């Protein structure tokens, strides 16, 4: 099948398109460099792509346009190897993409800049670039900073290659992503909604780069829903709607309205019910009245919505609309008044808003709208449980009864009310959300992007439902990025820009063109809030945010505590006590480092304590008077590595929750050593124990060894590929996978290394207790966690420092050593570690939270919180 054949099919299918194949031939583009043939992709319940065929030629800018949810991003995920298609083939530069592998696509010459940049937030820009383009290309990690800086300087965005990505603004992150893709000299470059976060000036900068690239023979796929921009940059335009190609056109031969018609694919009049302002069903009194509402993201908001009225919120994404509608639902903290039916409701309380009759239909349907594992019936009844229950007890029968009524009323396509909602299509899931909403008889109905990702048929029904809700007396607020939808539904539209309402369109003024104009003209310039740039300020702040600042604080507390106690009791500084302190700190250093290694890779290991006991008991059979030392050591090494392998294997191969796996190994190891030695036995060979306890001056040798090991680990963490990848995996597991880091292998080895680091701790404990007994080891599990938490590591992985572990371990031991000098009872030996752990965890959680809030003010999305107590998701969800 030839190129032009396919092309014809596409054109024919787009009903009235002219035959552009001839025109194409006249324009001297190069050969096809990206060829997608018959791509079909389905997700549970949704058919995202149906038989999509696309040819992209060398030297052209090929735009892919379509609404949200039309399948643009899914198609490009298939092209870039991030998703495997159910059917169809991908060819890049003439070579077929044999498996869904981002690495392979990259090798073949495909670069992609995603809407959601694949960046590892806790790593620096330079480290990100090194991971993204390959260590060889940047000349090794050592040269990554200089290399990255060169790539970024051309953009004049003030990006420092040593900054962490998490501290960059959204547009800076985007430029990093683009620079990363360009550094690979791709044959095909995919830009997915590249201008979403850029200012006008930056958009022009980007366009200049794109033209340079194309002139050099690169093909650029430009995905956007901004038609004017597309007209400006594209050579050819392919329209995608509902997962199908609706035609490919020469950019010169179609005008905006023709494109829009194909993108939307429907006639306005037939779709929308008549407006309330037209039929006169709008009430007289204000149902929702907002006065002087303020938050971090918007200010001075005052407006009112009458019963029966539908008011739209519009504006370019990220101008405070989302936060405003969520604030009305009580999901964001605010100051000012929100009154429902004349009564003010307490700010920032979702329960108060709900009790006043405010119902919110969220945009993120999977994350916020539905309860995926629950049945359709449970989802429908979730908000109105008291109506289906008596005396606080819910009746299943009445849930099903209610659900059946609603299913019939809203024409929800589901096999039964007991079907899990996850198996329904997007449109039907949204109808379930609306059914739930209507059952609550809302006084105020807030709908955010109510038809996103919904197929055309269901869309019509949803418009009807929203109108009916208004007609039955609700005040309705709709936030939508779809101007057509706002035009068709709303009696009034408020345009938001930079956090305030800048314009109100009423009656006849409400049209898609007016909405777009108002939104775009008011936001052409984005303000850039540059904090003070003085070199010292920046350096200090970077250090404060860095991984090493907790270590300094802990070190200071360590010294302070020592000085205070020594002042009251001089024997504290005696050689015996110092030697003891340093010696006892050594096993803490090792188990702390061990725990740190797994936590960095967003894992967890509860089994470190009993593993020490198990190894000591193993040793107590051989490292005794007349035993064989080497067999003993070999057994210990084997036991440690075997434990790590089992933990790592179960966690990574079967994606079992690491806490459960290591809790099981915790118990099993404990069982084994108790089975071997139910009472202490096997005196450790004296000379060996003495050797382990050898010291130089008053400093034990093992402590020196431990410090050296930690310093080596710290160096490796910063300067080697292992360290970068481990932090990358812990930082954002999905992005790490997309960047080609072997996520599972990295995590597997983190468990093995962890267990291996427990080995020296076991050796020290063996010398210290001098007999085969596992029981004293159990407390080391808590100690290891205490040390890691104190060291200020992000317990969600990705950040942390072994210097911090060093300081934390010494501090913990100092605290334990101090207590007898202060005459504290034995209960304190439990209280202190527990209280320190809790206090440090609370403190760091608060610090993180204030930082996150600050970042939110700067318009940077929150870091995804993937608690380690949930299993690693092996498949990324479809966006």
């Amino acid at each position, binding site marked *: 099948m030839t190129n032009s054949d396919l092309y014809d099919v596409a054109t024919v299918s787009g009903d009235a398109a002219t035959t552009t194949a001839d025109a194409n031939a006249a324009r001297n583009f190069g050969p096809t460099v990206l060829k997608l043939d018959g791509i079909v992709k389905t997700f549970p319940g949704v058919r995202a792509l149906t038989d999509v065929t696309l040819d992209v030629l060398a030297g052209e800018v090929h735009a892919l346009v379509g609404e949200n949810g039309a399948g643009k991003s899914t198609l490009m995920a298939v092209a870039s190897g991030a998703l495997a298609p159910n059917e169809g083939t991908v060819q890049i530069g003439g070579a077929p993409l044999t498996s869904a592998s981002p690495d392979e696509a990259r090798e073949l010459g495909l670069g992609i800049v995603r809407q959601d940049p694949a960046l590892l937030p806790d790593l620096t820009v330079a480290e990100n670039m090194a991971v993204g383009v390959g260590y060889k290309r940047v000349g090794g990690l050592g040269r990554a900073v200089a290399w990255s800086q060169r790539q970024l300087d051309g953009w004049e965005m003030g990006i420092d290659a040593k900054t962490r990505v998490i501290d960059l603004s959204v547009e800076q992150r985007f430029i990093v992503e683009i620079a990363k893709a360009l550094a690979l000299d791709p044959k095909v470059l995919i830009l997915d909604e590249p201008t979403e976060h850029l200012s006008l000036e930056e958009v022009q900068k980007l366009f200049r780069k794109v033209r340079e690239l194309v002139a050099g023979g690169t093909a650029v796929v430009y995905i956007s829903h901004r038609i004017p921009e597309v007209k400006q940059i594209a050579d050819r335009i392919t329209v995608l709607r509902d997962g199908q190609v609706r035609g490919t056109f020469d950019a010169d031969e179609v005008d905006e309205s023709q494109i829009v018609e194909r993108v939307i694919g429907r006639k306005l009049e037939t779709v929308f019910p008549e407006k309330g302002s037209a039929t006169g069903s709008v009430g007289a009194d204000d149902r929702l009245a907002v006065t002087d509402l303020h938050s971090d993201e918007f200010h001075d908001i005052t407006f009112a919505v009458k019963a029966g009225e539908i008011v739209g919120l519009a504006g370019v994404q990220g101008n405070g609309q989302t936060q405003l509608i969520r604030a009305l639902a009580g999901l964001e903290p605010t100051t000012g008044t929100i009154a429902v039916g004349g009564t003010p409701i307490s700010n920032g309380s979702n329960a108060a808003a709900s009790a006043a009759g405010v119902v919110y239909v969220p945009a993120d349907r999977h994350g916020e709208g539905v309860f*995926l594992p629950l049945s359709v019936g449970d989802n429908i009844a979730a908000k109105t449980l008291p109506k289906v229950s008596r005396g606080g007890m819910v009746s299943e029968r009445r849930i099903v009864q209610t659900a059946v009524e609603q299913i019939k009323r809203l024409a929800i396509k589901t096999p039964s009310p007991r079907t899990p909602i996850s198996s329904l299509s997007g*449109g*039907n899931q949204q109808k379930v959300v609306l059914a739930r909403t209507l059952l609550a008889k809302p006084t105020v109905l807030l709908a955010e992007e109510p038809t996103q990702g919904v197929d055309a048929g269901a869309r019509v029904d949803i418009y009807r439902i929203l109108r009916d809700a208004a007609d039955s007396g609700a005040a309705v607020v709709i936030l939508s990025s779809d101007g057509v939808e706002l035009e068709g539904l709303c009696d009034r539209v408020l345009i938001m820009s930079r956090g305030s309402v800048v314009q109100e369109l009423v009656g006849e003024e409400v049209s898609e063109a007016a909405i777009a104009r108002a939104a775009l003209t008011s936001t052409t310039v984005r303000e850039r809030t540059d904090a003070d740039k003085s070199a010292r300020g920046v350096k200090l702040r970077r250090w404060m945010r860095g991984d090493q600042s907790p270590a300094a604080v802990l070190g200071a507390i360590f010294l302070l505590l020592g000085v205070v106690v020594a002042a009251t009791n001089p024997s504290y500084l005696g050689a015996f006590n110092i030697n003891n302190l340093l010696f006892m700190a050594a096993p803490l250093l090792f188990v702390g480092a061990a725990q740190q290694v797994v936590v960095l890779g967003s894992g967890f290991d509860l089994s470190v304590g009993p593993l020490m006991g198990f190894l000591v008991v193993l040793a107590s059979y051989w490292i005794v008077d007349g035993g064989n030392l080497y067999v003993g050591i070999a057994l210990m090494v084997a036991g440690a590595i075997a434990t790590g392998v089992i933990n790592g294997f179960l966690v990574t191969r079967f994606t079992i929750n690491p806490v459960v796996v290591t809790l*099981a190994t915790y118990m099993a190891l404990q069982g084994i050593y108790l089975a071997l030695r139910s009472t202490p036995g096997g005196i450790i060979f004296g000379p060996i124990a003495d050797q382990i306890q050898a010291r130089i001056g008053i400093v034990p040798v093992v402590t020196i060894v431990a410090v050296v090991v930690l310093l080596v680990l710290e160096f490796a963490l910063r300067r080697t590929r292992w360290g970068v990848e481990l932090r990358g995996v812990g930082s954002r597991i999905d992005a790490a996978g997309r960047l080609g880091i072997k996520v599972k292998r990295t995590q597997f080895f983190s468990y093995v290394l962890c267990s291996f680091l427990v080995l020296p701790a076991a050796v020290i404990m063996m010398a210290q207790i001098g007999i085969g007994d596992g029981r004293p080891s159990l407390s080391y599990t808590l100690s290891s966690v205490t040390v890691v938490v104190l060291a200020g590591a992000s317990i969600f992985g990705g950040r942390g420092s072994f210097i911090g572990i060093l300081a934390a371990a010494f501090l913990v031991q100092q605290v334990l050593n101090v207590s007898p000098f202060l005459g504290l009872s034995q*209960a304190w030996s439990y209280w202190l570690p527990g*209280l320190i752990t*809790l206090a440090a965890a609370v403190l760091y959680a608060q610090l993180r939270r204030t930082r996150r809030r600050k970042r939110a003010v700067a318009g940077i999305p929150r870091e995804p919180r993937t608690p380690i107590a*949930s299993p690693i998701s092996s498949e990324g969800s479809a966006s």
Partner: protein
Amino acid sequence: MTTPTTTRSPSDAPTGGSAPAPNAVESTWRRMLSGSWVGIVVATALLFALSPIIAPGSLGAAPLLSMLPFASVLAIVAAGQTLVVQQRGLDLSVPGMIALAAVLSTGLPQNYGWPLWAAVIAGIVGPGIVGLVNGILVTYFRVMPLVVTLGMNAVLLGTVFFVADGTPSGAPAALNGFALDRTLGIPNTLLIAVVIVVIAGLVTQRSIIGKRLTAVGVSERAAAALGIRVNAYQMFAYAFAGLCYGAGGVLLAGYTKTPALFLGDSYLLPSVAAVVLGGTALTGGLASVVSTGIAALFLTQLGQLLRSVGWQDALQLIAQAVVLIGVVLLRELVPGLLRRRAAHRASSRESPPA
């Protein structure tokens, strides 16, 4: 190969026809293995059927009566753990909670002269309050449940040491008598466990509170969007769990007469194992307290059986760990295998209808 422009999205067809015929088999398996009581009931019935064959006489009155009190305590404790797991947490403070309950109900009367009733209430409410603190730290202070409960466990053990002043106390005779006594031939501990598990089961499964707890466990964000007080429900879960641990701890203290200070240590893994065996996913959401209770019976009987064939207590720990990992693996692997087989069958049957 035409693309008609008038078609609506084919997604209206349910599930896109990816797994047609073996659906029934697969869903039965899945139901057996996750979030349902069928699997554990079958397993428990099998275990009891096999018991007399493996160890003759192991179903006699004496062994049963010695096993049931321990199963009862585990069932009560695991009911609490179920609630925490439902909220995507994992409660590692179980040992400390049980020890606290035991030391309060035994130590307070002996060392401080409290009346028994007050000591028992303190033993139940004390852990409940600690559970509430756990909940506050998890919800308002956003600390990971694992770190909170691990740290809290150490704090609790310190408190136990402090209250007991280092030496275990004997349970008051009345408490001991009650725990050992039988009503109509049924051990009192079992009766209490049944009452607690049934009440907890009804509340969590059938009441409005329970439905909302499930909603919060499935998705905090979706629950918040509905107007549910997410933090309040999560705190309730932790506090209720604390009450369960307290009740379990008091009963255990009464039954063992002179409870060791750290008698709770051996209940941590079994409580987690019972939750997992009962079909509650560790990812939160759907949970069944009653299934957990049956799983507690299963685990205790398994232990009893192993003991009667001569396994020492240390080996029991290994057995429990193996059972836990085995069940998790089974649940992880079987649906995957079935799906693969279904996909294989579907693809070999030539293109399914679009």
